Every structure is written in C-alpha cells, then in structure tokens.
C-alpha cells in the first residue's frame, strides 16, 4: 500500500495548490520551492483557479499497470491561465473532439485504485468547460 505518498499531496491533487515566486511573480505548479524562471526561493502558496486550455494531448492505448482498465484514455498538457503547464488526464471528453487551445476546467476524479482492496487515489483531471459546452 502506498498511502503516505498520495496523502501528502492532497492539497495539490484536490485543489491545485502551488506556489508563487515573490521575486519574479511566476506561478508554479507543482510546487517546487525554487522558482523555475529566476531560481529565487518561491515558497508562498498559491491556489490555482483550475481554468486553462489544452496545450497538447495524447490518447494512451498502451497503459501501465493500474491504468489498464481505463485505456484508451487521454493525457494532456494543460496550460493553466496563470501560466504553468500541468500533466493531467482529460475526462468527459470524446477523444475525436479534442483540440489544442480547447478551454478546460479542473475537476476531481479517481486517478486509480490500488487494486480491489487498496485505497482510491483522487486527484485533478480536466474536462471541457461545462459552461462552454452548454
């Protein structure tokens, strides 16, 4: 069982809590404590809005253990409106309709389960904006 390695990331997985660089203002997700852009310390927490657009995407057919029952599924690079890219699955989407630039919003979904008896790992995925599709 891998309980603690997911538990410690719950703020990131549920709420996209990253950091902001006090020196250059760049927003960071995942949090990394040292700014990617200017390498100054960046430890001030920042909660992202969860809005963004598709930067790139791939539909995965050859899935790793733990994800085989989800295949085919779509993994994307989502460009958050605050700047950073995040790797996440797209959900509630028909793979043939995905386009680079498509607006998406963060939702919390099951990422995978540790078998039938292990924990369920929840975290962020992104879906086409519901208000945009309505």
């Amino acid at each position, binding site marked *: 069982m891998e309980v603690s390695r997911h538990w410690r990331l719950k703020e990131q997985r549920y709420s996209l809590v990253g950091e902001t660089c006090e020196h250059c203002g760049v927003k960071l997700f995942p949090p990394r404590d040292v700014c990617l852009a200017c390498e100054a310390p960046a430890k001030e927490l920042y909660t992202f809005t969860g809005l963004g657009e598709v930067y790139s995407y791939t539909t995965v057919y050859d899935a790793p253990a733990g994800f085989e029952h989800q295949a085919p599924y779509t993994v994307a690079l989502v460009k958050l409106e605050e700047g950073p890219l995040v790797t996440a699955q797209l*959900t509630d989407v028909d793979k043939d309709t995905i386009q680079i630039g498509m607006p998406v919003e963060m939702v*919390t979904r099951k990422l995978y389960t540790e078998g039938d008896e292990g924990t369920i790992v929840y975290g962020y995925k992104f879906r086409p904006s519901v208000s945009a599709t309505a």
Partner: protein
Amino acid sequence: MSDTNGLMKPDRPVGIVGYGAYVPRYRIPATEIAKMWKGGEGGVPIKEKSVNGLDEDVVTMSIEAARNAMLRAGINPQEIRAVWVGSESHPYAVKPTSTIVAEAIGAVPNTQAADWEFACKAGTEAMQAAIGFVGSGMAHYALSIGMDTAQGRPGDALEYTAAAGGAAMLIGPAAEAVAIINGSYSFVTDTPDFWRRAKAQYPSHGDRFTGEPAYFAHVSGAAEMIMGALGRQPSDYTWAVFHQPNAKFPRRAAQQLGFTPEQINPGLLSPRIGNTYAGSTMIGLTAVLDIAQPGDRILIVSYGSGAGSDAFDFEVTERLAEVRDRATKTETYISRRTEIDYATYTRFRDKLKL
C-alpha cells in the same frame, strides 16, 4: 421548537445559503436495457438514466456538487462545522466519504464530518441534522449532501432507474439564505421494502410491496403532517418535489395529495436522469431553485426504504436571484448528455468480471 405534532423547527431561523447539483454526462436509454432483457418488448419506467463515468464515484460527484454550493454561498469554507454525505454507494465500506469532500473544499480541519446511510433519504436526514446544528447555534454553516451511484441488478426492474447524481445543500442562518426553512418533519416506520445485505453487491426489493405500504404511505404521511403542522394546503406551494424512484410514483403521490403537474414538473427529473437515490429529492430541489422567484413556497418530501420520509417547507428569498448564476445549473448538467450502449454501461458500472 418541537412539539407533539412532530414539526421540527430550530430556535434560530435557518435556510439554504448555497446549493449545488451534479449529474454525470452519460445516459443509457431505458430501451437499451429493455433490449437486453426483454427483447425490447413492453413499457419502460423512464426515458433514460444518468450513469457515472469510469473515474467517478460518490466522492468525486459530491465534491463537484459541494463546490457548486460553495460558489453560490460565497463563504469561507473554514466557517463550515459539518460536512455530511448521505449515500447508499459510498466507495469505501469503512473510510468516510465526507473527510475527502471536506478536504477538497477546504473545510478541514475544524469541522465535523460523517457519512449518512438510510437508503434514498440519507441526504435529507443530513439536511435535518444540519438544520439542528445551525439552528442550535453550534455551527454557522453545515454542509449536507445526498449523492449516489446506484446499482441495479442486471435484468432487475431497478436496473432501468438506478442512476447517478445528487446535490449539496449548505445550511446557514436565515438572514443569508436563498430559501428559508420554515420547518421539517420525519415519518419513519419499520417497513422492509428494499434492502442490501452487508456483503451483497446488488440490493433486493419487495417488488409491488415497495408501493402502497412503503413509498406512498410514508411520502403522503410526511406531506400531510408537515402541511397540517404549518397550516398549509397544496395550493399554498408554488413548487413541490417528491422522491422520484421512477416517473410514475411521484406523479401519483402528487395527484393523491392534491398537487398539480405544474407544481411538480420542474423538479421531476427522474424521466430524464433516473433515480439518483439519496440525491433524488435534493437534486429535484436544485432544479426548482434554479427557476424559483422570491416568495415562492416549496415543499419537498424524500423517501428512504426501510422506511421513512423527510419533509421540508421552504420560502425563497431575494438572494436566490443574485447567486444562482454563480455555478452550473442542474439543467446544464442534464443537457450535457452522451448516450451509451449496454456494453459501455456494463464497463462503466463495473459489471464486467475481469
């Protein structure tokens, strides 16, 4: 103040300060199920039902409904003192759904959290408890959720209707409410019309026994008692929502009680999404709140097998119009519709043994 007429009303006036719905995007038409088990012959109880996707369960759906309620309420989640989730399909047998939801909306750690269970009325009993929590002054806000990913045994009558969805209601002071709660009433007996034993995957039921002695006796009993206690009659209500296990039962209960189709139609979602169990009555209320006007009176009556009904009397405030567009509306979720076939349904609902 409670008295012998059974009406439950807190000392401090309370109401709904935020509400939110969630319905997954997938739909399986009832005709698709009938094709599988009845050769496509005979009638079907609803048009179609909602089905959760592979990555959805009561936790994820509750989180989305709760976020919608929080968007409308616009309050600091740290002021919430209870996160309660009523469901018959909690993903864990032991491990609360409610702590995950509380964490996701930022309500931890200064909050109560618990899962509630009472077949299809687990959500409304959490609402009643929240009324007590807030009404007593123990909490400023309490969040109650009714949500399910209901399972029907393949080929069983319930397979046509057992659906996924629900709603979240943030209860708080009446002064901040979008709908003030005038009172609540519960009607409970030992009536075994529907059950699931601890290790069984699918529920069992008493077939036609689920009707008169169960659903109708409790729903009508609760509705008549709350109206009597508050001195109201059906025509005093602009809208009414009765638990909706199918399309027929709530229509018949409404008719027997003297409500018109116009009063119940906006909240009658079962023909299009099925029976969302613990979510059923509450999501009906969200659809009504999406269209209600200040001063409108709303009656809702849930039903949970085993058996009992919780009734609530609401009055809509001016604040509703200000907040309802802050989150996705129930109709938007229902219109976001992707039809699936029986094969996809068996995969999504974990009916395939791998």
